C-alpha cells in the first residue's frame, strides 16, 4: 500500500510536469495546427536558465526556500516566454502562408538549433542543481510520508493549470484564443488580431514549459541538454492522450500518463518505463486517435 501511494504521488508529480509541457503543444496546435517540435527544447532551456539564475545570483542567501522558488519560477517563465515569442517570429511567422510541412521542418530545425546552443553554452555533461534549495523533509499525510518537493511540484503545477484554465475560459483574450483555434477567418472578422493571439500563445506555452524545466531540475537535481527530447515526446504523448488542441485534455493526459508510467515502473519493470509510455501513444492512436477529451464537437449542418 505504501509503494502504491508513493508511486501514485510520484506519478502525479511527474505527470503534472508532463501536463505543463503538454499545454504548450496543445495550445500551439490549437491555433496553428502545428506540432512545435522545438517545445521540448524550450523546456530544457527553462531548466538551464533556472540553474544559471540560481547559481549566479545566489538567491538562497537572501530568500527562504519558497521565496527562491517563486522568484526563480517567475524569472524563468518570463525569459523562456521571450525565447518562445522570438521563435514564433523568426521560425514560424514567415511560413504562415506556406505549406504546413514547411513549418514542421522549421520546428525540427529550431529544435536542433536549441539543443546545440545549450550544449555549446553549458557543455555536454550533466549539470547538477544545488541540493540545498528545498528542504529535504517529508510531510506526513495520514501516516504516509511524502517528500515536500513532490507536493510542491504538484501544487505549483495544479495552481498554474487552474490559472490558465480561468484565463482561457473567462477573459476576453482567452475567448479570442479559443475563437482563433476554432476558425481563424471568422476570428479575424470579429476584429481579433490573430497574429497577436498566436504571439500570446507562444508566450504562455513556453512560459509553462520553461517552469516545468525548472521543476525537473529541482525535483531530480540533474539536467542535460538532450532532456528536452524525451520530456518533449512524453508530453506530446500526454497531449495526444488527452486530445490534441484540448486544454483540459492536456492536463488530464499529463497526469494520467505520469501515473501510468510510475505504476508501470513499480509493478512491471522500471526498464520498461519509457516503452510503456509509447505503447500508450500507439494504443491511443489506434483505438481513439482524437484522444480522451478530443473533438467533442457537436456540429450540426
Amino acid at each position, binding site marked *: 500500500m505504501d509503494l502504491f501511494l508513493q508511486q501514485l504521488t510520484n506519478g502525479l508529480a511527474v505527470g503534472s510536469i508532463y501536463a505543463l509541457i503538454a499545454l504548450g503543444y496543445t495550445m500551439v496546435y490549437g491555433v496553428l495546427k502545428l506540432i512545435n517540435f522545438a517545445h521540448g527544447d524550450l523546456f530544457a532551456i527553462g531548466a538551464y536558465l533556472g540553474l544559471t539564475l540560481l547559481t549566479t545570483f545566489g538567491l538562497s542567501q537572501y530568500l527562504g526556500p519558497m521565496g527562491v522558488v517563486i522568484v526563480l519560477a517567475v524569472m524563468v517563465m518570463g525569459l523562456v516566454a521571450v525565447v518562445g515569442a522570438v521563435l514564433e517570429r523568426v521560425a514560424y511567422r514567415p511560413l504562415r502562408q506556406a505549406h504546413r510541412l514547411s513549418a514542421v521542418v522549421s520546428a525540427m530545425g529550431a529544435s536542433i538549433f536549441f539543443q546545440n546552443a545549450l550544449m555549446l553554452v553549458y557543455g555536454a555533461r550533466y549539470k547538477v542543481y544545488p541540493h540545498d534549495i528545498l528542504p529535504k523533509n517529508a510531510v506526513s499525510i495520514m501516516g504516509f510520508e511524502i517528500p515536500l518537493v513532490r507536493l510542491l511540484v504538484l501544487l505549483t503545477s495544479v495552481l498554474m493549470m487552474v490559472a490558465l484554465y480561468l484565463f482561457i475560459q473567462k477573459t476576453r483574450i482567452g*475567448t479570442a484564443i*479559443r475563437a482563433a483555434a*476554432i476558425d481563424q*477567418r*471568422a476570428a479575424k*472578422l470579429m*476584429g481579433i488580431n490573430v497574429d497577436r493571439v498566436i504571439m500570446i500563445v507562444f508566450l504562455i506555452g513556453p512560459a509553462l514549459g520553461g517552469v516545468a524545466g525548472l521543476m525537473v531540475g529541482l525535483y531530480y537535481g540533474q539536467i542535460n541538454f538532450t532532456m528536452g527530447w524525451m520530456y518533449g515526446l512524453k508530453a506530446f504523448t500526454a497531449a495526444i492522450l488527452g486530445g490534441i488542441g484540448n486544454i483540459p485534455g492536456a492536463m488530464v493526459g499529463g497526469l494520467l500518463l505520469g501515473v501510468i508510467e510510475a505504476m508501470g515502473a513499480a509493478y512491471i519493470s522500471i526498464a520498461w518505463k519509457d516503452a510503456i509510455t509509447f505503447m500508450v501513444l500507439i494504443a491511443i492512436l489506434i483505438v481513439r486517435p482524437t484522444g480522451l477529451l478530443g473533438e467533442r464537437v*457537436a456540429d*450540426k449542418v
Partner: protein
Amino acid sequence: MGCDGVMLQVENIHVRYGRVEALHGVTLEVREGEIVTLLGANGAGKSTTLNAICGIFKTTEGAIRFRGDNIHTLPAHEIVTRGVAQVPEGRRVFGTLSVRENLNLGAYTCNDNARNQSNLQRVYALFPRLAERAGQLAGTLSGGEQQMLAIGRALMANPKILLLDEPSLGLAPLLVKAIFDTIREINRSGLTVVLVEQNARAALKLAHRGYVMEVGRIVLEDTADQLLANPDVQKAYLGGVR
C-alpha cells in the same frame, strides 16, 4: 464621410489566389442607408469581393475606400474596428462556444460595456430565440438559428455597414422570409447593407440597387426594379418567368 453620401467605394480591384486571378477589376459603390445586392452565379467572385472589402483577401490592384479612407491596406481586424462587419457564407459561428460567447466575440472591438449591453438587448429583441439559447453551444443550433446568431454577432460589432454572404443558403423558405424581413428591419433602423445572394428574386425585392457579376467582373448595374424587369437578368437569374 465621402461627398454625396457614398459610404463604400470599391475601385477596380483585382484579387489573386496564387496564380489565378479571381477578380479582374471590380468597381462598385454603396451609399449610406442603401441595401445593395450582388448577384451572380457560383464562382463569379461575389464572396471574394466581400472578403476583399473585409481585408481577408488582399487586393493586388485598385482601391477600397470606406467613408473616405483607404481600407484595402489595413489588416482585417482593423477594418472591423472601422465599422465593417461581415456575416460570412456558411455562417461560421464558433460551434464549441456558447451562443452568448459568440455574441461577446462579435463585440470584441468595442470596450464600451453599456453600449455592448444595449446592443445585446437589441439583438435579443431581434432574435428572441438567441436569448432562450444563450447558454447553449452554437454548434447545436439549427441552421436558421445559426444564421440568426451570425447576424446577431455581426451586429454586436456596432457596424456602419453590414455585408451578408448568402444568408438564405440551406434554409427553409419560411426561415428565408424571416431572415429577409429582419434584414429589411435592420436597414430601416439606419444600417447600410450589402447582400450577396443566390436567391436573386428575393434579393432584388429587398434591395434598392444591384450589381450583376460574371467571372470576376461587374457586368450590369442598375436599380433593383430595373434589374427585376431586365429580360437578360430574368433569363439568367430569375428562372425566365415573370
